[in-house]
Protein backbone atom coordinates (compact mmCIF):
# COMPACT_ATOMS: atom_id res chain seq x y z
CA UNK A 1 0.00 0.00 0.00
CA UNK A 2 2.93 2.31 0.73
CA UNK A 3 4.28 1.58 -2.74
CA UNK A 4 0.91 2.57 -4.15
CA UNK A 5 1.10 5.84 -2.33
CA UNK A 6 4.64 6.54 -3.54
CA UNK A 7 3.59 5.83 -7.11
CA UNK A 8 0.62 8.13 -6.73
CA UNK A 9 2.82 10.93 -5.35
CA UNK A 10 5.30 10.55 -8.19
CA UNK A 11 2.56 10.77 -10.81
CA UNK A 12 0.39 13.43 -9.19
CA UNK A 13 3.13 15.70 -7.88
CA UNK A 14 3.21 18.25 -10.75
CA UNK A 15 -0.54 18.79 -10.91
CA UNK A 16 -0.94 18.91 -7.14
CA UNK A 17 1.97 21.32 -6.89
CA UNK A 18 0.11 23.66 -9.23
CA UNK A 19 -2.91 23.43 -6.96
CA UNK A 20 -0.78 24.32 -3.96
CA UNK A 21 0.78 27.18 -5.88
CA UNK A 22 -2.65 28.63 -6.57
CA UNK A 23 -3.06 28.94 -2.81
CA UNK A 24 0.40 30.15 -1.87
CA UNK A 25 1.64 31.97 -4.97
CA UNK A 26 5.12 30.72 -4.15
CA UNK A 27 6.65 27.48 -5.40
CA UNK A 28 8.70 26.84 -2.30
CA UNK A 29 5.76 27.36 0.02
CA UNK A 30 3.65 25.31 -2.35
CA UNK A 31 6.07 22.43 -2.03
CA UNK A 32 6.00 22.66 1.76
CA UNK A 33 2.22 22.82 1.73
CA UNK A 34 1.90 19.86 -0.60
CA UNK A 35 4.32 17.75 1.41
CA UNK A 36 2.36 18.46 4.57
CA UNK A 37 -0.89 17.59 2.83
CA UNK A 38 0.59 14.36 1.54
CA UNK A 39 1.74 13.38 5.02
CA UNK A 40 -1.85 13.76 6.18
CA UNK A 41 -3.11 11.88 3.17
CA UNK A 42 -0.69 9.02 3.75
CA UNK A 43 -2.21 8.46 7.17
CA UNK A 44 -5.57 7.77 5.57
CA UNK A 45 -4.34 6.33 2.31
CA UNK A 46 -6.16 3.04 2.81
CA UNK A 47 -9.46 4.87 2.85
CA UNK A 48 -8.52 7.41 0.21
CA UNK A 49 -7.47 4.85 -2.39
CA UNK A 50 -9.20 1.74 -1.09
CA UNK A 51 -9.20 0.02 -4.48
CA UNK A 52 -12.39 1.85 -5.21
CA UNK A 53 -12.87 2.93 -8.78
CA UNK A 54 -14.70 6.01 -7.51
CA UNK A 55 -11.79 6.99 -5.32
CA UNK A 56 -10.52 10.47 -6.05
CA UNK A 57 -7.16 10.96 -4.33
CA UNK A 58 -6.58 14.28 -6.09
CA UNK A 59 -9.81 15.66 -4.69
CA UNK A 60 -8.93 14.49 -1.21
CA UNK A 61 -5.43 15.97 -1.37
CA UNK A 62 -6.77 19.28 -2.65
CA UNK A 63 -9.21 19.47 0.22
CA UNK A 64 -6.38 18.79 2.63
CA UNK A 65 -4.31 21.46 0.87
CA UNK A 66 -6.97 24.03 1.61
CA UNK A 67 -7.51 23.02 5.21
CA UNK A 68 -3.79 22.85 5.85
CA UNK A 69 -3.24 26.20 4.22
CA UNK A 70 -5.96 27.66 6.41
CA UNK A 71 -4.51 26.13 9.54
CA UNK A 72 -1.07 27.47 8.66
CA UNK A 73 -2.55 30.90 8.46
CA UNK A 74 -4.43 30.56 11.72
CA UNK A 75 -1.28 29.42 13.50
CA UNK A 76 0.61 32.47 12.27
CA UNK A 77 3.92 30.71 12.24
CA UNK A 78 4.40 30.88 8.53
CA UNK A 79 5.23 34.54 8.22
CA UNK A 80 6.34 34.54 4.65
CA UNK A 81 3.78 35.50 2.13
CA UNK A 82 3.90 36.15 -1.56
CA UNK A 83 4.78 39.70 -2.28
CA UNK A 84 2.40 42.09 -3.87
CA UNK A 85 4.87 42.80 -6.63
CA UNK A 86 7.03 40.02 -7.97
CA UNK A 87 10.64 40.95 -8.58
CA UNK A 88 12.22 41.51 -11.96
CA UNK A 89 8.97 41.96 -13.73
CA UNK A 90 9.23 42.12 -17.46
CA UNK A 91 7.16 44.48 -19.57
CA UNK A 92 3.84 43.01 -20.51
CA UNK A 93 3.30 41.58 -23.94
CA UNK A 94 -0.37 40.80 -24.00
CA UNK A 95 -0.03 38.10 -26.60
CA UNK A 96 2.72 36.21 -24.88
CA UNK A 97 1.78 33.17 -22.82
CA UNK A 98 4.64 33.74 -20.40
CA UNK A 99 3.31 37.20 -19.63
CA UNK A 100 -0.12 35.78 -18.96
CA UNK A 101 1.36 33.33 -16.49
CA UNK A 102 3.42 36.00 -14.84
CA UNK A 103 0.41 38.29 -14.71
CA UNK A 104 -1.70 35.54 -13.22
CA UNK A 105 0.86 34.94 -10.49
CA UNK A 106 0.99 38.63 -9.73
CA UNK A 107 -2.79 38.97 -9.74
CA UNK A 108 -3.35 35.96 -7.51
CA UNK A 109 -0.80 37.29 -5.03
CA UNK A 110 -3.00 40.33 -4.59
CA UNK A 111 -6.18 38.39 -3.87
CA UNK A 112 -7.36 37.69 -0.33
CA UNK A 113 -6.63 34.16 0.83
CA UNK A 114 -10.20 32.94 0.76
CA UNK A 115 -10.74 34.18 -2.77
CA UNK A 116 -7.70 32.21 -3.88
CA UNK A 117 -9.03 29.13 -2.12
CA UNK A 118 -12.39 29.53 -3.84
CA UNK A 119 -10.74 29.89 -7.25
CA UNK A 120 -8.58 26.83 -6.69
CA UNK A 121 -11.42 24.62 -5.54
CA UNK A 122 -14.02 25.83 -8.04
CA UNK A 123 -12.00 26.19 -11.23
CA UNK A 124 -8.85 24.15 -10.73
CA UNK A 125 -10.18 21.24 -8.66
CA UNK A 126 -13.51 21.61 -10.48
CA UNK A 127 -15.71 21.34 -7.42
CA UNK A 128 -19.24 22.65 -7.29
CA UNK A 129 -20.19 25.78 -5.40
CA UNK A 130 -21.81 23.62 -2.73
CA UNK A 131 -18.71 21.44 -2.32
CA UNK A 132 -16.48 24.49 -2.18
CA UNK A 133 -18.72 26.08 0.44
CA UNK A 134 -18.68 22.93 2.53
CA UNK A 135 -14.90 22.61 2.53
CA UNK A 136 -14.33 26.25 3.36
CA UNK A 137 -17.13 26.36 5.91
CA UNK A 138 -18.84 29.28 4.22
CA UNK A 139 -22.15 29.82 2.46
CA UNK A 140 -22.78 29.29 -1.22
CA UNK A 141 -23.55 32.97 -1.51
CA UNK A 142 -20.13 33.78 -0.12
CA UNK A 143 -18.54 31.45 -2.65
CA UNK A 144 -20.35 33.35 -5.39
CA UNK A 145 -19.34 36.73 -4.07
CA UNK A 146 -15.72 35.67 -3.68
CA UNK A 147 -15.75 34.40 -7.25
CA UNK A 148 -17.28 37.59 -8.53
CA UNK A 149 -14.77 39.81 -6.72
CA UNK A 150 -11.83 37.68 -7.78
CA UNK A 151 -12.98 37.74 -11.39
CA UNK A 152 -13.37 41.51 -11.23
CA UNK A 153 -9.88 41.88 -9.80
CA UNK A 154 -8.37 39.65 -12.48
CA UNK A 155 -10.20 41.54 -15.21
CA UNK A 156 -8.69 44.80 -14.05
CA UNK A 157 -5.32 43.58 -15.25
CA UNK A 158 -4.40 44.38 -18.81
CA UNK A 159 -2.46 41.16 -19.23
CA UNK A 160 -5.38 38.96 -18.21
CA UNK A 161 -8.38 40.89 -19.44
CA UNK A 162 -8.24 39.36 -22.89
CA UNK A 163 -8.69 35.89 -21.45
CA UNK A 164 -11.53 36.85 -19.16
CA UNK A 165 -13.86 38.81 -21.41
CA UNK A 166 -16.64 37.00 -23.18
CA UNK A 167 -16.55 36.95 -26.97
CA UNK A 168 -19.55 39.22 -27.31
CA UNK A 169 -18.17 41.79 -24.89
CA UNK A 170 -14.85 42.32 -26.69
Amino acid sequence: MEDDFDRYVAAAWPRLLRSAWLLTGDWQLAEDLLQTALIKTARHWNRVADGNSDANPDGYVRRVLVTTYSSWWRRKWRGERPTERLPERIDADHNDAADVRFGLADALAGLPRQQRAVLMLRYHADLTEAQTAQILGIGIGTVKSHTSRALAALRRRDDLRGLLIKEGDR
Partner: protein
Amino acid sequence: MNDDDLLRDLLTNHLPDPPSTPAPTGLRRRAARRATAAVVATTVGVFAAIAVSTVALAARGDEPPAPADPFAQLKLELWHGGFVTSDDRMIIIEFESVCDGARDVRVDERPDSVRIALVGFPAVDVSLPSLLITEHCTAQVMLAEPLAGRVVIDAAGGVPRTLVRQSRELFPTYPLSITTHDMNAFDGPPDNGLIWQHHIQWDKRYLRIAQYEKDSAGGRVADPAVREVPVRGHLGTVYVDATNSADPSKAHRIQLGWTEGDQRIVVGIEESGVGDAEAMLAELLKVADGLR
Protein backbone atom coordinates in the same frame (compact mmCIF):
# COMPACT_ATOMS: atom_id res chain seq x y z
CA MET B 1 -17.85 30.89 -22.91
CA ASN B 2 -19.40 32.08 -19.67
CA ASP B 3 -17.49 33.43 -16.68
CA ASP B 4 -17.09 29.98 -15.17
CA ASP B 5 -15.60 28.60 -18.35
CA LEU B 6 -13.25 31.55 -18.70
CA LEU B 7 -11.94 31.14 -15.17
CA ARG B 8 -11.65 27.39 -15.56
CA ASP B 9 -9.61 27.87 -18.73
CA LEU B 10 -7.37 30.49 -17.08
CA LEU B 11 -6.71 28.38 -14.00
CA THR B 12 -6.20 25.16 -15.93
CA ASN B 13 -4.40 26.06 -19.12
CA HIS B 14 -2.44 29.18 -18.21
CA LEU B 15 -0.72 28.23 -14.99
CA PRO B 16 3.05 28.57 -14.84
CA ASP B 17 5.12 25.42 -14.91
CA PRO B 18 6.43 24.32 -11.53
CA PRO B 19 10.16 24.33 -10.98
CA SER B 20 11.81 21.12 -12.06
CA THR B 21 11.97 19.59 -8.61
CA PRO B 22 11.13 15.90 -8.61
CA ALA B 23 8.44 14.45 -6.44
CA PRO B 24 9.74 13.18 -3.13
CA THR B 25 10.31 9.46 -3.10
CA GLY B 26 8.73 8.97 0.28
CA LEU B 27 7.55 10.68 3.40
CA ARG B 28 10.78 10.28 5.34
CA ARG B 29 12.63 13.21 3.83
CA ARG B 30 10.10 15.70 5.13
CA ALA B 31 10.99 15.46 8.77
CA ALA B 32 13.75 18.02 8.67
CA ARG B 33 11.79 20.73 6.92
CA ARG B 34 8.79 20.53 9.20
CA ALA B 35 10.86 21.17 12.28
CA THR B 36 10.56 24.89 11.73
CA ALA B 37 6.83 24.66 12.24
CA ALA B 38 7.19 23.11 15.64
CA VAL B 39 9.51 25.83 16.79
CA VAL B 40 6.98 28.52 16.30
CA ALA B 41 4.02 26.39 17.17
CA THR B 42 5.71 25.68 20.46
CA THR B 43 6.59 29.33 20.90
CA VAL B 44 2.98 30.38 20.64
CA GLY B 45 1.84 27.61 22.87
CA VAL B 46 0.02 25.35 20.50
CA PHE B 47 0.19 22.17 22.49
CA ALA B 48 -2.12 19.26 22.18
CA ALA B 49 -3.65 17.85 25.30
CA ILE B 50 -1.97 14.51 25.10
CA ALA B 51 -1.74 11.89 27.72
CA VAL B 52 1.83 10.68 27.87
CA SER B 53 2.93 7.44 29.34
CA THR B 54 6.30 5.80 29.45
CA VAL B 55 6.84 2.10 29.10
CA ALA B 56 10.27 1.31 30.43
CA LEU B 57 11.58 -2.13 29.73
CA ALA B 58 12.53 -4.18 32.72
CA ALA B 59 16.10 -5.31 33.12
CA ARG B 60 16.88 -8.52 31.32
CA GLY B 61 19.29 -11.34 31.69
CA ASP B 62 22.25 -11.99 29.46
CA GLU B 63 20.23 -13.79 26.79
CA PRO B 64 16.88 -12.11 26.72
CA PRO B 65 14.18 -13.43 24.46
CA ALA B 66 13.13 -11.11 21.69
CA PRO B 67 10.87 -8.59 23.43
CA ALA B 68 7.26 -8.48 22.41
CA ASP B 69 6.28 -5.37 20.51
CA PRO B 70 4.35 -3.29 23.07
CA PHE B 71 2.61 -1.47 20.25
CA ALA B 72 1.59 -4.51 18.22
CA GLN B 73 -2.16 -4.22 18.73
CA LEU B 74 -2.37 -0.44 18.54
CA LYS B 75 -3.31 1.90 15.73
CA LEU B 76 -0.15 3.91 15.23
CA GLU B 77 0.14 7.21 13.42
CA LEU B 78 3.15 8.91 11.89
CA TRP B 79 4.89 11.75 13.60
CA HIS B 80 7.48 13.63 11.70
CA GLY B 81 10.13 15.30 13.78
CA GLY B 82 10.77 16.95 17.07
CA PHE B 83 13.22 18.21 19.64
CA VAL B 84 15.35 17.03 22.51
CA THR B 85 15.61 19.36 25.47
CA SER B 86 19.02 20.49 26.62
CA ASP B 87 18.90 18.16 29.64
CA ASP B 88 18.58 15.19 27.26
CA ARG B 89 15.54 13.90 29.12
CA MET B 90 12.52 15.24 27.29
CA ILE B 91 11.52 14.65 23.68
CA ILE B 92 8.96 16.85 22.00
CA ILE B 93 7.42 15.24 18.95
CA GLU B 94 5.32 17.03 16.37
CA PHE B 95 2.48 15.73 14.28
CA GLU B 96 -0.60 16.83 12.41
CA SER B 97 -3.86 16.24 14.20
CA VAL B 98 -7.17 16.16 12.44
CA CYS B 99 -9.06 16.20 15.72
CA ASP B 100 -10.71 12.91 14.97
CA GLY B 101 -10.30 11.49 18.43
CA ALA B 102 -7.88 11.14 21.30
CA ARG B 103 -4.19 10.37 20.97
CA ASP B 104 -1.70 8.89 23.33
CA VAL B 105 2.08 8.89 23.14
CA ARG B 106 3.93 5.83 24.39
CA VAL B 107 7.61 5.12 24.68
CA ASP B 108 9.59 1.92 24.44
CA GLU B 109 13.08 2.60 25.79
CA ARG B 110 15.85 0.17 24.90
CA PRO B 111 19.62 0.32 25.40
CA ASP B 112 20.32 1.46 21.85
CA SER B 113 17.06 3.04 20.77
CA VAL B 114 13.94 4.84 21.87
CA ARG B 115 10.75 4.00 20.01
CA ILE B 116 8.01 6.56 20.30
CA ALA B 117 4.50 5.60 19.28
CA LEU B 118 1.74 8.05 18.53
CA VAL B 119 -1.38 6.02 19.20
CA GLY B 120 -4.65 7.13 17.69
CA PHE B 121 -8.13 6.44 18.97
CA PRO B 122 -10.29 7.73 16.14
CA ALA B 123 -13.79 8.68 17.15
CA VAL B 124 -15.29 9.88 13.89
CA ASP B 125 -14.96 9.28 10.19
CA VAL B 126 -12.37 11.70 8.86
CA SER B 127 -12.71 10.86 5.21
CA LEU B 128 -13.84 14.45 4.66
CA PRO B 129 -11.55 16.91 6.40
CA SER B 130 -13.10 20.17 7.42
CA LEU B 131 -11.63 23.60 7.81
CA LEU B 132 -11.73 23.40 11.58
CA ILE B 133 -10.08 20.11 12.28
CA THR B 134 -6.49 20.27 11.13
CA GLU B 135 -3.97 21.39 13.66
CA HIS B 136 -0.28 21.12 14.11
CA CYS B 137 0.42 19.52 17.47
CA THR B 138 3.32 18.70 19.72
CA ALA B 139 3.52 16.28 22.60
CA GLN B 140 6.15 15.91 25.28
CA VAL B 141 7.68 12.64 26.34
CA MET B 142 9.81 12.36 29.49
CA LEU B 143 12.37 9.57 29.22
CA ALA B 144 13.26 7.29 32.10
CA GLU B 145 16.95 7.69 31.22
CA PRO B 146 18.78 10.45 29.30
CA LEU B 147 18.68 9.93 25.57
CA ALA B 148 22.51 9.73 25.45
CA GLY B 149 22.77 9.35 21.71
CA ARG B 150 20.24 6.57 21.34
CA VAL B 151 18.39 6.41 18.05
CA VAL B 152 14.84 7.75 18.21
CA ILE B 153 12.42 5.78 16.06
CA ASP B 154 8.90 6.51 14.95
CA ALA B 155 7.15 3.29 15.87
CA ALA B 156 4.54 3.74 13.13
CA GLY B 157 7.00 3.43 10.28
CA GLY B 158 9.98 1.97 12.10
CA VAL B 159 12.20 4.74 10.79
CA PRO B 160 14.69 6.84 12.75
CA ARG B 161 13.76 10.48 13.22
CA THR B 162 16.26 13.29 13.38
CA LEU B 163 15.55 15.47 16.38
CA VAL B 164 16.75 19.01 16.93
CA ARG B 165 18.57 19.67 20.15
CA GLN B 166 17.46 22.73 22.05
CA SER B 167 20.03 25.08 23.48
CA ARG B 168 20.05 28.21 25.58
CA GLU B 169 16.38 27.69 26.28
CA LEU B 170 15.64 28.93 22.82
CA PHE B 171 14.61 26.85 19.90
CA PRO B 172 17.12 26.31 17.13
CA THR B 173 15.75 25.22 13.81
CA TYR B 174 17.15 24.29 10.49
CA PRO B 175 18.68 27.13 8.48
CA LEU B 176 16.32 28.77 6.06
CA SER B 177 17.38 30.34 2.85
CA ILE B 178 16.96 34.06 3.15
CA THR B 179 17.80 34.54 -0.49
CA THR B 180 14.60 32.86 -1.58
CA HIS B 181 12.45 34.75 0.90
CA ASP B 182 13.97 38.16 0.82
CA MET B 183 10.65 39.88 1.13
CA ASN B 184 7.95 39.07 3.61
CA ALA B 185 4.54 40.57 3.98
CA PHE B 186 1.70 40.45 6.39
CA ASP B 187 -1.75 41.86 6.29
CA GLY B 188 -3.35 43.91 8.99
CA PRO B 189 -6.96 43.58 9.97
CA PRO B 190 -9.66 44.83 7.63
CA ASP B 191 -10.80 48.29 8.57
CA ASN B 192 -13.84 49.63 6.78
CA GLY B 193 -12.92 47.81 3.64
CA LEU B 194 -9.27 48.75 3.83
CA ILE B 195 -6.42 46.40 4.43
CA TRP B 196 -3.13 47.65 5.75
CA GLN B 197 -0.34 45.67 4.28
CA HIS B 198 3.23 45.81 5.48
CA HIS B 199 6.13 44.57 3.47
CA ILE B 200 9.38 43.84 5.21
CA GLN B 201 12.32 43.54 2.90
CA TRP B 202 15.77 42.49 3.87
CA ASP B 203 18.34 44.68 2.22
CA LYS B 204 21.72 43.81 3.65
CA ARG B 205 21.93 45.96 6.75
CA TYR B 206 18.43 47.32 6.71
CA LEU B 207 14.95 46.05 7.03
CA ARG B 208 12.69 48.06 4.80
CA ILE B 209 9.14 48.26 6.01
CA ALA B 210 6.59 49.50 3.53
CA GLN B 211 3.04 50.12 4.65
CA TYR B 212 0.38 50.07 1.99
CA GLU B 213 -3.24 50.99 2.10
CA LYS B 214 -5.22 48.56 0.02
CA ASP B 215 -8.82 48.21 -0.95
CA SER B 216 -10.81 45.06 -0.31
CA ALA B 217 -10.02 43.73 -3.78
CA GLY B 218 -6.34 43.85 -3.05
CA GLY B 219 -5.46 46.87 -5.16
CA ARG B 220 -3.09 49.40 -3.75
CA VAL B 221 -4.79 52.75 -3.14
CA ALA B 222 -1.94 54.76 -1.71
CA ASP B 223 1.80 54.99 -2.08
CA PRO B 224 3.65 53.13 0.65
CA ALA B 225 5.37 54.83 3.52
CA VAL B 226 8.82 53.25 3.57
CA ARG B 227 11.10 53.27 6.57
CA GLU B 228 14.36 51.53 7.24
CA VAL B 229 15.51 49.82 10.41
CA PRO B 230 19.23 49.07 10.73
CA VAL B 231 20.21 45.62 11.93
CA ARG B 232 23.47 43.98 12.86
CA GLY B 233 24.96 41.04 11.11
CA HIS B 234 25.23 40.45 7.41
CA LEU B 235 23.19 38.93 4.68
CA GLY B 236 22.42 35.35 5.41
CA THR B 237 22.78 35.55 9.15
CA VAL B 238 19.58 37.32 10.08
CA TYR B 239 16.18 36.12 9.18
CA VAL B 240 12.99 38.02 9.77
CA ASP B 241 9.61 36.46 9.97
CA ALA B 242 6.70 38.79 10.51
CA THR B 243 3.07 38.03 10.93
CA ASN B 244 0.03 39.49 12.46
CA SER B 245 -3.49 38.36 12.66
CA ALA B 246 -6.42 38.96 10.39
CA ASP B 247 -8.45 38.93 13.58
CA PRO B 248 -7.92 42.26 15.36
CA SER B 249 -8.66 40.65 18.70
CA LYS B 250 -5.62 38.46 18.31
CA ALA B 251 -2.08 39.47 19.00
CA HIS B 252 0.26 41.05 16.53
CA ARG B 253 3.50 39.14 16.48
CA ILE B 254 6.91 39.52 14.90
CA GLN B 255 9.72 37.04 15.06
CA LEU B 256 13.36 37.38 14.27
CA GLY B 257 15.98 34.70 13.99
CA TRP B 258 19.58 34.20 13.10
CA THR B 259 22.10 31.44 12.66
CA GLU B 260 24.91 30.58 15.04
CA GLY B 261 26.98 27.78 13.58
CA ASP B 262 24.55 24.98 12.95
CA GLN B 263 22.08 26.39 15.43
CA ARG B 264 19.23 28.64 14.56
CA ILE B 265 17.82 31.02 17.13
CA VAL B 266 14.35 32.48 16.91
CA VAL B 267 12.93 35.12 19.21
CA GLY B 268 9.56 36.75 19.00
CA ILE B 269 7.58 39.60 20.43
CA GLU B 270 3.85 39.84 20.69
CA GLU B 271 1.44 42.67 21.28
CA SER B 272 -2.29 42.61 21.75
CA GLY B 273 -4.48 44.32 19.24
CA VAL B 274 -3.15 46.17 16.25
CA GLY B 275 0.54 46.58 16.89
CA ASP B 276 3.02 49.15 15.70
CA ALA B 277 5.18 46.95 13.54
CA GLU B 278 8.18 49.23 13.59
CA ALA B 279 8.16 49.75 17.34
CA MET B 280 7.81 46.03 17.86
CA LEU B 281 10.62 45.28 15.48
CA ALA B 282 12.91 47.83 17.13
CA GLU B 283 12.17 46.29 20.50
CA LEU B 284 12.80 42.84 19.12
CA LEU B 285 16.14 43.88 17.70
CA LYS B 286 17.18 45.09 21.14
CA VAL B 287 16.29 41.71 22.56
CA ALA B 288 18.20 39.98 19.80
CA ASP B 289 21.21 42.20 20.37
CA GLY B 290 21.21 41.20 24.01
CA LEU B 291 21.22 37.54 23.14
CA ARG B 292 23.88 37.63 20.48
